[in-house]
């Protein structure tokens, strides 16, 4: 199964015909459909874990209730017979006023973590760490007005972005490309099959 599907996926890339494009789209639809069916397993797992916490009265079990309430509010108002759809008032407002702000704030925590990571790791411990430090510092200082120094720093920053940054990215991308193709081939040939639960 894996082999046939994989092989088709490889060959379709080279064939521009309509019939093949249709087949490809059809198979991609399969993955979407399987994904949605599987989602039920995910929801089940979420229920199980949280229900377990509540019934065991384990530490912080009260918070498990909040998770379940959030989940059921979304499911009920989203699927509500008659009124249930993506534009349902509760569903929409929970999205805009709960999901969006918390996710955006989680994302913005990065501003702090990037600072603490830099503070901790950008130390001149070894040649490698020093190179990391120098490149990072030059790019960051580019932001700060430094009078006459600004121009050379800005040039240096551009150089780092254009030369070593490019070379580094390319080397990594090429390696990843070959590695990914090799891994995909192994999957196709059934050599890498840990995902089936056996070695």
């Amino acid at each position: 199964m894996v082999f046939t599907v994989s092989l088709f996926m490889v060959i379709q890339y080279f064939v521009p015909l309509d019939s093949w494009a249709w087949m490809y789209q059809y198979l991609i639809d399969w993955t979407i459909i399987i994904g949605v069916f599987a989602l039920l397993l995910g929801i089940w797992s979420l229920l199980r874990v949280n229900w377990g916490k509540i019934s065991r009265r384990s530490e912080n079990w009260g918070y498990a209730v909040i998770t379940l309430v959030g989940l059921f509010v979304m499911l009920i108002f989203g699927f509500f017979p008659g009124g249930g759809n993506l534009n349902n008032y509760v569903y929409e407002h929970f999205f805009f006023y709960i999901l969006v702000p918390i996710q955006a704030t989680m994302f913005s925590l990065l501003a702090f973590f990037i600072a603490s990571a830099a503070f901790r790791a950008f130390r001149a411990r070894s040649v490698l760490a020093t190179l990391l430090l120098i490149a990072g510092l030059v790019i960051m200082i580019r932001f700060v007005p430094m009078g006459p120094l600004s121009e050379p720093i800005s040039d240096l920053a551009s150089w780092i972005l254009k030369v070593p940054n490019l070379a580094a990215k390319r080397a990594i991308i090429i390696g990843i490309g070959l590695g990914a193709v090799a891994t995909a081939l192994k999957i196709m040939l059934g050599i890498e099959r840990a995902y089936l639960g056996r070695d």
Partner: protein
Amino acid sequence: MKYILPGFLVALLLLMALSVTAIAQEQDETVGEDVDTLMQPIEQEPPPKPVITAGEDRPNDNGHKLTIYWDYPQEATGKIDYFEVYRAESPDGEFKLRGTSPSNYFEYFDIGDSDENAEDYLENDKDLYYKVVAVVEDGPSSESDVAGPYHAVGQWFHTGKVPVMIAVIIFAMFTIYFIQSARKGKDLFVRPLAGIEAVDEAIGRATEMGKPILYVLGIGTAADIATIASFTILGRVAKKVAEYQTDLIVPCYDAIVMSVAQDVVKSAYLEAGRPDQYSDDQVFFVTNAQFAYVAGVNGIMVRDLPATNFYLGYFAAESLILAETGNSIGAIQIAGTDQVTQIPFFVVACDYTLIGEELYAASAYLGRDPLLLGSLKAEDWGKAIFMVLLAFGVLAVAFGWEGFREIVRVNL
């Protein structure tokens, strides 16, 4: 063995050269048409008639597209405003306006829809007739003779992608060859990777401290190569964890990934002889909203205080949030991803990082499975060939053989 590499290289170059000449010939044909230089009888008005010279299918596609070329006296272009292009299914059928072209361009690319039900549908392999009208907005226009029939056709093979195909075939042959030779028991040397060596130590540390191990598969789907590579590593890690009788926590982002991870961990425990210790509560689904997932995993970290964190798989912006939170609880962290943009953050914030392809290699390293190791050898050869091609190409271009660029170029 020694001659395999140069042999392949020569074959590769030959094949590429062949495909390029094929493409070049195709392109030549497009200019081959004789230019019709018959002078139009000079009239006061209307302007001269356009003369349709060709209607060609566009190569390397699914059809449904035609390019129409026509001739027009250069000196008359100033007198007209634009051209209109009409199409019909028979010479005396109903001509429908397809579009316009500015007065100084004598070609039109007719793109039809490939959907039968669309209004704009252009059927493949069907006779189509065209005429072009030179339009003068405030005066009489002149119409070309009907030309055709022309056909749009879908192609079986995309010739522009030949270099990709050659690369895939060669690389597949390498992989199969080295896996076969590994199967025969040939010993293959692999250099140690710090991140891999650390895995045992990290699991041992958690055991000593009596703390759990957290394994994050990332936010990819089960069809992402990085996630699949991570499954294999998860299997190895889970087996060791089961042997040491430490707790393993695997919070998942995707339901299919969760299902597969459950199978993987369950069978690893079985293999280690401790199936009774496994429970589906260890490998569970959190949520499939990116930063909600991060919030959940962060919560697990600060409450369950794992001693070792693995982040292996597909990661996006959450990489640094996870790694910094993990660092703040003092966990040993081993990370790896094939997402180029996230590697720097893992390198900075984690103790060990598998950079890019090292993630794929990790499964082979951990298992010491000769079949998997064989493919590492193939990857190395792939890299070597690439390097030779690159070095040769740069020299070739530097010494003026610019055509080499076109030999390796993929024309989508």
